[in-house]
């Protein structure tokens, strides 16, 4: 027992390693699995997320996710693992590359086109102001048969009514 400090050192290091292993894997809960499975789609069923799919195949895949998580894979690494094996269709969110990039670009393009069309229309419609419109002129009629309301009050009334609707 001459080099007692060596033994203690080894013991400490082992404890440390054990601690590291525990920190990495630990207990993988069903919730952890679902967290990842939610971001994946069943590779064979139609439009079914992996966390709700009830087939045996999906149950197996969920178990596989659990194994990968326990082995220290991060969420994104698990997703990549599945994508490599089963193709892009397992990703709920399309990649931002390849064909799938269009899926992201097109709505933006569409919105920009929409804004552009709107600006054009506004310009065109506001540019030419017509003189003759279908609205009723404002001046109150000079003949007021039975009204005993003051004229300016009536004018204000009509102005505000027009503004209303």
């Amino acid at each position, binding site marked *: 027992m001459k080099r007692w400090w060596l033994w203690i050192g080894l013991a400490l290091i082992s404890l440390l390693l054990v601690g590291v292993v525990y920190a990495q894997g630990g207990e993988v*809960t*069903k*919730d952890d699995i*679902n967290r990842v499975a939610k*971001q994946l*789609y069943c590779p064979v069923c*139609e*439009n079914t*997320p992996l966390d*709700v799919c*009830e087939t045996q195949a999906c149950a197996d895949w969920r178990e596989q996710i659990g194994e990968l998580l326990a082995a220290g894979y991060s969420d994104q690494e698990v997703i990549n693992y599945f994508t490599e094996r089963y*193709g*892009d*269709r*397992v*990703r*709920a*969110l*399309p*990649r931002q590359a*390849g*064909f*799938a990039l*269009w*899926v992201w670009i*097109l*709505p933006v393009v*569409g*919105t920009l086109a*929409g*804004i552009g*069309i*709107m600006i054009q*229309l*506004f310009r065109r*419609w*506001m540019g*030419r*102001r*017509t003189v003759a*419109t*279908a609205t009723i002129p404002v001046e109150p009629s000079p003949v007021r048969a039975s009204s005993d309301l003051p004229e300016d009050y009536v004018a204000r009334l009509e102005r505000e009514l027009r*503004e*209303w*609707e």
Partner: protein
Amino acid sequence: MIPDVGYLAMVTALVGAVYATIASLYGFFKGEERWVNSARHATMTLAPLLGLSSLTLIYALVVGDFQLKYVATTSSRDMPLFLKVTALWGGQNGSLLFWSFLMASFTFIVMLRRWDEDRELLPHVIFVTAGTLVFFVGLTTFVANPFEKLSFIPPDGQGLNPLLRHPGMVAHPPTLYLGYVGFVIPYAFAMAALVTRRTDPHWIRVTRRWTLAAWLFLSLGLLLGGRWAYDVLGWGGYWAWDPVENAAFMPWLTGTAFLHSVMIQEKRGMLKVWNMVLIILTYGLVIFGTFITRSGVISSVHSFAQSAVGPLFFSFIAVTAVASVATLLRRLDDLKSENRLDALLSREAAFLLNNMLFITLTFSVFIGTISPMVSELVTGEKITVGPPWFDRVTAPQFALLLALMGIAPLMAWRKTAAQRLGRSLWWPFLIAVVVVIGLFLRGVHSWGALLGFLLVTFVGVTTLWEYVRGVIARRRARGEPWLVAFWRLAGRNRRRYGGYIVHLGVVCMALGIIGTEFFQQDTEGTLRPGESLEIGGFRTVYRTLRTYPGPGDLIVTEATVEIYQGDQLLKTVHPKREFYQNTQQTMTIPALRSTMAEDVYVLLTGWESGGATATFRVYINPLVNWLWLGGLIFVVGTLVAGWPDFEAERRMVMPRLTIAPQQV
């Protein structure tokens, strides 16, 4: 024997529809009234014929005439009566016949109306409605025949897909179909108006109730579908951005835009081209929606070519789209705006923005829906576009629409002074900010959720105030009690206040959606009896498990779970799994404990050794019942907006006749 009668009736209807289409066109070109009249009568025979046809199919389903292929695939001896009847729309062929019957019925009603004021529109309305029927009844006669016979008689049928064996199956498809079919009528009138150059708002006025009814049914169909999914499909939610869901949602979006946009044409003679575009889009999307629901084309391109239905639908949509757009382009000059835009801060501008937002939203949903199919065509590999994509892309657009919904009703026609608008908006905005600060302090830190709550409060307050303001004015003028004033106000101006009620419904629905989208929690775990799962402050304790046979081939496994909050037992629920032996299909039916604050949603996902352990998944869905409540308010509001006001309409018509003759 009886189904043969049904087949004959269906074929006769096809012949009648073909005749009506040709006769109406011939009568129009020759200018001969009697051909158009004949076409009208022929069109009116279609509803009774297709009704008879549908009835014989229902008879075959109820009685169990399994020699009919359709009955063999959708019905079975052990199904309850109501399910046998609903099997009419449970499979492709039957549902196409049902669609045709609904279309024919609506057309029948349209043929009955007084055509004195717009006789020239009749031939074209007949052409479009009968033409659409030619397509659908042609499909059911040649390609998707519900009366097709097998060469032998099976002893029993396969029965309806277990997913469809619930009361939600009764209401959801018919209401959705009524919505689809209802939109064909305004489309027919729009096309008639274009061709005959009667592009004044007349066609809008006469189809206003049709549009509202179609829109109501479509909204109801979507709501019922969501509720059915939530109650029965067992994945904790109500909307999955599934292609079939999207196919029903897109015509709703363009239909909503159309519903609003036509108001501008009525009031100011503007946005005429927009209205045509919107109704043409809605019609196309309605056909597309029917097609997607019935074929699996979006899921897999391969199923597209398996039956002729796919390519035929596709061709029909293409042909009608080209014809509609061509007609529109030819008559573009007739659709010039009568008025100009006076200011950016005006109701007209707000409606234009509204149209734009709905269209870009529809476009985004469309891209997401067809991309899997297109990617398979182009790259050979299919991608999935799931809810995370849709949420990300549509959320900003929905937020903008919600904001617009609050501001636009406060804008005046032609021009609103910015100060005036500001004066009406600053205090609701302040209230909303205060609410958001409060929520932030209570722990809500998600920016998206905070923005959502801000908008919901803002729009809710402004819309509510518009209504209350009217009630106050009425009370001041007439001294009515609150409730009476409330009721009479809506009664006097149904379009306006019905609209406000609908908007309030939307606000409540938005609240429910924000709650579930941002704050849903879930947990899953395996329990022994007495053990529990904890989530969101609730504790779900597993007690017992039992298995028992249900009707027919059904086996039910049911768990008893107690839901606690703290030490208080809130409710005992029974989540279960239904197993259908014939088709080897399982359904996971959730058990709910519902309050306005949240739903505790419990699913039984597995078990071992007869219940020694059982696995549960528990969701907490905050605010979800605001969604359903909002839906109810929405429906009420639409009814208020559309309810006929015979007295007011008479008043509206009379003055027009007494004032000096104007061009109509």
